């Protein structure tokens, strides 16, 4: 019981002090170039980072749903979505085929060793993070149909 109390008190402390920094992690592009995530997300407009994988059904549903309206979103708010695949070496070769086959227009980066996934404390994907001025403003894990509309409300708010 003591341990449980300890854990929860620690949790509360850290929840109150939750970090909004983007960890300094190197990611690869599809042609093998290395970029630090902090450099990629450093933009004037709102940036969405979506952690996904080729084997993750809700991830693909979310990115498909956003893809249908991405043109509109970009026109109206200048938002940019960076889709970071956490696929390991088993499935990472599928990433390029899948994003093309789906016709997605996102910038795609690879977190093959799951360094970013660990640093963000993401035990499951999808994890969707909204970034403004290179600080994490909000995060949401999981996807249900229609949650892209809530996400867009948030983006519009931040883009004002």
């Amino acid at each position, binding site marked *: 019981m003591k341990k449980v109390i300890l854990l929860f008190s*620690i949790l509360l*402390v850290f929840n109150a002090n939750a970090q909004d920094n983007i960890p300094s992690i190197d990611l690869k592009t599809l042609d093998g170039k290395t970029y630090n995530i902090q450099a990629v997300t450093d933009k004037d407009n709102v940036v969405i980072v979506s952690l996904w994988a080729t084997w993750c059904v809700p991830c693909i549903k979310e990115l498909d749903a956003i893809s249908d309206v991405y043109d509109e979103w970009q026109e109206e708010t200048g938002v940019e979505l960076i889709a970071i695949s956490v696929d390991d070496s088993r499935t990472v070769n599928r990433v390029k085929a899948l994003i093309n086959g789906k*016709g997605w227009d996102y910038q795609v980066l690879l977190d*093959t060793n799951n360094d970013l996934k660990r640093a*963000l404390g993401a035990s499951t994907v999808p994890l969707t993070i909204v970034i403004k001025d290179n600080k994490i403003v909000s995060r949401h894990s999981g996807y249900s149909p229609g949650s892209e509309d809530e996400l867009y409300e948030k983006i519009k708010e931040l883009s004002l």
Partner: protein
Amino acid sequence: MKKIILCVAILYSGLSFSQDGGYFFGGFESNSQWLLNDEGLNFIAPEDQFRANNYFRLDYNLGEFTAGVQYETYLPAALLGYAPIYDNNNGIGTYYLNFKHKALDITAGYFYEQFGNGLILRSWEDRQLGINNAIKGIRVICSPLDYLNLTGVYGKTRNGFNVSEGVTQGIDANLYISEALKMEKVELSIGASYVGRYQSSGTNDSIPSTVNAYGGRFNFVAGDFYGGIEAIIKDPDVIANEGQISSNKLYDGTAMQVDLGYARKGLGVNATFRRLENFAFYADRLAEGNIYNQELISYTPALTKQQDYMLTNIYVYNAQPRLIIESYDQRAGEVGAQIDLYYKIKKGTALGGKYGTKIAANFSYWAGLDAEYNIENRWYEAKFIGKGPKLFRDFSLELKKKLSKKWSAIATFQNVIVDKGIVYGGPLEEEGDIEASIAVLEGTYKFEGSKSVRFVLQHLWAEKDRKNWAAAVLEYNFNSRFALYVADNWNYGDTDIHYYSLGGSYSKGRTRLGVNYGRQRGGLICIGGVCRFVPENTGVTANLTVSF
């Protein structure tokens, strides 16, 4: 109690310092179950009815330094089907200190690393599978030139709350040729890896104390085409089975993987060929083939499509990299290929309709190596491809379509053939194949706001094993945070058992909670091509994750 107060005090003081530029991050994950007796399933709850795996991870970054620690508890026992080495244990599972400055990256403590495709070395964590083979030691990554990076590792592999007997060392080098030569039209890179394991062989001179593996690879991107090849050879070593050395004979091992792909907007094709011959590399020679996937050095997952539905996950493949020469079972490895196709039918065409149609197809075929065995002399000879026994064949086709602003649908068909020995363990080619066809229809209806309802209907046809199944899922999303579901898998062809379950999840910001009650179908649970066996059980499970 004093210790607890001290810990909390240190953490608080750490936090107040954190204002000076450093920051904390990490997460907490708790997966627990309460097992219940179930006569209908013939399941008797074990003595430890309540089981929980908890992970508490805390990292701190200050400028160029990052440090972290992960505390884990498996009290009073680990979840059903996890490696018993974790049962009733708790403690610091991993810790590290990392320094990163420009082209230099040094880690001391536990680290996760992967060379190439991971065939020669991969250390990673998967909590659903109960795998954490982080290496405890030192890792140095440096990039002396923009187009060259080098990684060196040295350490022992984590095994429960201890480390392996064997010591692993490795070097990996990657050279980006096109960057070095300033080529613009194509991307070319080559890589080379070395991994060695040292483990004392005691008084037995015929067993090598050091076993080395060497690998090379080449990757390219040229226009819409891309691909790569990787090949590994492993020095002769003894083979072990169930913790015993089979004989004093030594056998070398090889692995080879070739990938080829083509991708342009609207179309993507990706094909993979892989051949493994006696390619099981563990941080302890006696750990070979352990069913809990502990102390792995090499990463040889099943290269098949990861299926998404309940009934498409009954007959799955598990990679067969090992050499076994026993009177009751002979195998030398596997060879096979898979191909994926993704295609989008454009909006506004006859088949595409208003929103377009997305197609995904996958085919895979895996066979045991075509080999001759001399059991008496423990000798074998394998062909490169040959006509080895079919272990697994899978074809699946998925059509995904948004029908209107409110409706979207997915239809999936799969036909699979699998050797019974793969599904239930035990010798291969003895009990024959199981063939199954599965059809799945999924529909989603979006209401105003972010309310939605999703249903899935599934049917599996099979003439052998447990014959026909039917399944259904109904899920209601109240909003993007709260969802409830009810599901049933019914094996009406043979046992007449209903594997029902119901549950819900709540997710907000950094916290997610899921609770389920029901029956778990026994069998292989596979994540990322690595499988763990779970016995049938009934109970309540809860999963809580918090990240910060």
